[in-house]
């Protein structure tokens, strides 16, 4: 059984901020990390591999991104993936959701071929869009289930526990299918051992450019994107509120009461 995990390398969000005076971004040594939700998706794949030894699960991680994204793929290999593909080309830059999903689709069809299951992260923390997986599924012509937190393989189908607004649903779907993962498997996660780290370096990471995917310039990157970012700016800054010392709790409670009374809440 082939499980594909789509992963993205992202800048650590907490460290990106806007300088209120100049309106420019302040990056203090922004580190690139494996998007946490993609890591959950990988954990889910590894869990399925462990639980279904008879299915001979092969885990293939793929990413579209700059050459640096190789390190995120390497981390996936350390965490239990078997093989990695990086679709990397200057011409892919500027891809929006559509162009990204199309490139991933071509990559999957041309380099991997048949597969049984695709696991993706619920969202990438840089863009927070959560849209690439559904577009990828549609482009591949397979069904998708979002917000899975548990996946069970039952013959040619899977049962996915899916978060809903009110609790959860169990969704049954035939393979091949795509599932996005919002939370890792509950089993304790294992940190890569020294041996995993050494083994990972022997596993293949193939880097593939636009030409090998036989994609025309018009369909990739900025040219192939339907949406375009025209402006980036800092969010409006809120005026500072009133902050009081609460050491004298009686006094603080009174002030809070007065504040809420003014606002007609109490």
């Amino acid at each position, binding site marked *: 059984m082939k499980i594909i995990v789509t992963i993205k390398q992202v800048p650590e969000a907490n460290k990106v901020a806007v300088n209120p005076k100049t309106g420019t971004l302040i990056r203090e040594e922004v580190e690139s990390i494996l998007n946490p939700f993609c890591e959950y998706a990988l954990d889910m794949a590894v869990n399925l591999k462990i639980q279904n030894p008879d299915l001979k699960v092969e885990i293939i991680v793929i990413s579209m991104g700059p050459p640096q994204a190789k390190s995120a793929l390497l981390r996936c290999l350390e965490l239990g993936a078997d093989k990695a593909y990086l679709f990397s080309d200057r011409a892919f830059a500027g891809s929006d959701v559509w162009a990204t999903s199309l490139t991933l689709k071509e990559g999957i069809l041309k380099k991997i071929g048949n597969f049984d299951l695709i696991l993706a992260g619920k969202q990438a923390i840089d863009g927070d869009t959560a849209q690439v997986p559904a577009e990828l599924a549609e482009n591949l012509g397979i*069904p998708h289930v979002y917000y899975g937190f548990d996946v069970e393989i039952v013959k040619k189908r899977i049962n996915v526990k899916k978060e809903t607004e009110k609790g959860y649903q169990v969704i049954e779907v035939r393979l091949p299918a795509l599932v996005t993962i919002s939370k890792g498997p509950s089993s304790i996660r294992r940190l890569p051992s020294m041996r995993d780290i050494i083994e990972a370096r022997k596993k293949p990471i193939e880097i593939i450019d636009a030409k090998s995917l036989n994609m025309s310039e018009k369909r990739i990157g900025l040219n192939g994107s339907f949406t*375009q970012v025209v402006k980036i700016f800092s969010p409006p800054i809120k005026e500072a509120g009133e902050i009081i010392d609460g050491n004298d*709790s009686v006094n603080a409670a009174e002030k809070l009461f007065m504040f809420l009374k003014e606002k007609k809440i109490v």
Partner: protein
Amino acid sequence: MLQINVENCTGCKICEQACPYGAIIIDPETKKAKVLDNCTLCGSCINVCRYKALSIKRVMIPLENLKNFKGIIIWGELENKNGQLQFKKVVYELLGKALELNKEINEPISVVVLGPPRISALIDELFYYGADIVYLCEHELLQEFSNDGYTTVLTTIIIDKKPSIVLYGATIKGRELAPRIAARLNLGLTADCTGLSINKQKQLVQTRPAFGGNIMASILSPYTRPQMATVRPNTFSKIKLKQPKKCQIEKISVKLEKQSIRTKIIEEISSKTELINIEDADILISVGRGIGSKENIKLIYELAQELKGIVSSSRALVELGWTKHPIQVGQSGKTVSPQLYIALGISGAIQHLVGMQTSDIIVAINSDPEAPIFKVADFGIIGDLFEIIPQFLKLCRKNKESSL
């Protein structure tokens, strides 16, 4: 590709600081900007460059070709509340926004409603909030939401009606449905918008937060129609008209086969406490790790009862298993925007702030004066919540007695 006009570049380094990916640097030798391989063409650098030294070549298509598309379509998402079907609040918020956009474009506003037979009684309300037309699609197989079924019906309507704009709530369902439709129709889609406006070229300007809310990006779909966006609940206001618009309902006959819906719901679990939707609450009392133990949350419920509010929480408590995910506020939980948000023992990590910072009034109690939650608070108390809340409850009760 990002193009650098070397003649204009002064080597001022502003672009270097502006790039979220570290993909543009000032070459130490030439003292001019240089693009690295990891440039994503996001455009952050172009906006900050004061010397017009940076540009991206974009393909453009004549706007004339897009003129055949007219009208704003809103997906009228239904929810089941205590056994009763009703529209989600965001549907009315989208109508309110559409009325505003219409000051610039003046096109018909329609709502598409998908559901089981006999839902027509619900739709009269929509005409009070700005709908000109309601497209009604009733079918047994639309009783339960499915990506396959809903995509098929909505795409047929979009192809037939040729709107210029289609809007969806960025709800759990909206976020998985909209991209499927966008991919089927080969359209651009902007997710999770918090701002929408119309520019001089009559294009839809879609503004959304990125990087956990640290920066905002304005996005266009210059050459595809309709322009599609999902919009965060609780960001726009609904507008009730004095007079409802003339009721125009068009029933759409739906052809749908059971086997074309590839997912099957085999179990549905919801617990009583989770039935409360924190997105709709006017007052939220939100609790974080500062509460110390699961038992102590009782105190928060007491406060919620006193203020007629609903309890929500940070992700830390969900991870500890003290509260459940449906009441989690933040990036990986829900976006809320109540009249009053009281944060108790919540540090205010960026992932939490993005989910609540548009609340009307924010009150925070935290023992750490450096806690980032104070940056967004309208009223903050640096102190121990276990000291202050009981005192506050006393005051509330005294106040009630005296007003009796």
